[in-house]
């Protein structure tokens, strides 16, 4: 238990979704902090020092793509891996997600094994 727990920032506006994912992540040994809108998510990403960010595309006040872009274009936070959640499976959105620099892209509804696998992969 000497290893520091990895901190994951979950930016998602749907409270039920937040609950479900939080339970899942905590059961798998991660610390979870949450934000329920774009600006708050951006702020916490910069101040709370997460090891990974899970970002929903549809967020109030500022959409997920923008948050992703802002983090990735900033030298200080560029290295934090970002997984984007989305309901849209259109190729355009996939392309946009990749262009914005998201490291992974998961469509809802997702299989939790898939999410965990991607998290572990990105955290090395």
């Amino acid at each position, binding site marked *: 238990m000497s290893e520091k727990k990895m901190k994951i920032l979950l930016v998602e506006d749907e409270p*039920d*979704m937040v609950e*479900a994912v939080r*339970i899942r992540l905590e059961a798998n040994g991660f610390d979870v902090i949450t934000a329920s809108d774009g600006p708050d998510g951006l702020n916490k990403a910069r101040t709370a020092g997460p090891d990974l960010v899970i970002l929903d595309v549809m967020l109030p006040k500022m959409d997920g793509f923008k948050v992703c872009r802002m983090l990735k274009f900033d030298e200080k936070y560029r290295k934090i891996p970002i997984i984007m959640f989305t*309901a849209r499976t259109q*190729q355009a959105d996939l392309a946009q997600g990749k262009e914005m620099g998201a490291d992974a892209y998961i469509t*809802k*509804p997702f299989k*939790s094994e898939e999410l965990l696998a991607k998290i572990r992969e990105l955290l090395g």
Partner: protein
Amino acid sequence: MSERKNGEQLVIHDIKDKILWAVKVRHAIVVLSLCLMLFAFFNKLDIGLSLGLIPFVAAYNIVAHIIYRLKKNYQLWQIISFRSVFQVFDVLAITFLIYITGGLESPYWFLYLVLIVISGFGAYSYAAFSVFLIAIFSAVFYLGLLLLTYRGVIPTYGPGFMLSPQELLRSIFNKAVFTTVSFFLFAATIYYFTKLIGEQRQQLSQKNKELLVALGELKDLDRVKDEFISNASHELRTPLSVIRENVSLVNDGIVGKVSQKQKKLLMSSQANVDRLARILDNMLDISKIESRMLALNRQRADLCEVASKAVELFGKKARDKNIRIETRFPGKVVAWFDPDQVLRVYINLLDNAIKFTAEKGAVTVGVEVFPREMRGFVEDDGIGIASADRARIFERFTRIDAEGLVGRRGAGLGLSICKGIIEMQNGRIWVESDPGKGSRFVFALPRVEVNE
């Protein structure tokens, strides 16, 4: 789309009719000139001018007719630029007419005055302005001609510059009747023609404006529908995700111990959530295809490459069922189509083929080349399809129930999506099959040559 085309064709017909009409007017003028000539002959008046006018107008009309005939099959914009050709032709023709009817002595220079007056100095319409311009240019040409004959560069036909001003004026006014009538006839035909083209131009630009407005409205509507669909998609998927996650959490024992019976029900719920998600995907696709909103990304691509990709994706699934996938590709088949959408078609057909083929069976995926089209096919030696079902199978929400079919059942949308994708690219899709003898699903796409 077809309505717009009809509108364009109507406008073209309209113009063609009017031009034909204008040509007929010119023919009428030839006839009138002939009458003039006969009148002059029987009244022993000076017929020189009429004689000069008739073959001239006749020849002019014939040449105009020939040019028009040559251009008859051309498109609209070419008919419009046609106008400048005619205007230049008119100016040169009049100048030549003046020359052969006596140069300075020729009364036809009155024509310019008439034209300038009729055009009202180009003040009241585009057509009038063009006529005004023509008249000015023609006057310039005429003055140029006078200068050249004065300087002796070109030979003159009549006494011209030798006459005194009074004699000249008298000579001209003697031919007043003929000159006036001919001027008006000639001027009228030139003016009418120009007015015609000007009118059509206006009509076209008006139509163009209307079309642009309609296009703008359609684009707005398109965007609204797009937003609606993606919002609806998100709205439906979010609760689905929550349900799935919650069920999954309980099932995995994270929030407490779960009995075997409970686990079974929970897993069934999970599977059904997945099924809902797939149906949702398909429904959104179908609605996009039906409203022609599925964006086609046509590009130069190799159909065999697309087919190979599909085969690769099903490698594992086929091995699990011990099914052999064979391929038949005749080298590179390059054409202009949307490879991602066609890949979906192959994936769908291959998925079905594997689903409906028993263990240890064989599935063949291939491409065939024909002179103007290329065909992709997926063959299986599965249970086959009865002739009654073969037509229905591509309809929405139609599933053919099969005895002993194991595996997930879809919503019956896969093949209708394939049909939509193929038909949007001007292709056809069908199936050749008999019960017990396997099936062969084929789609054909036009093989359009692409100029690089």
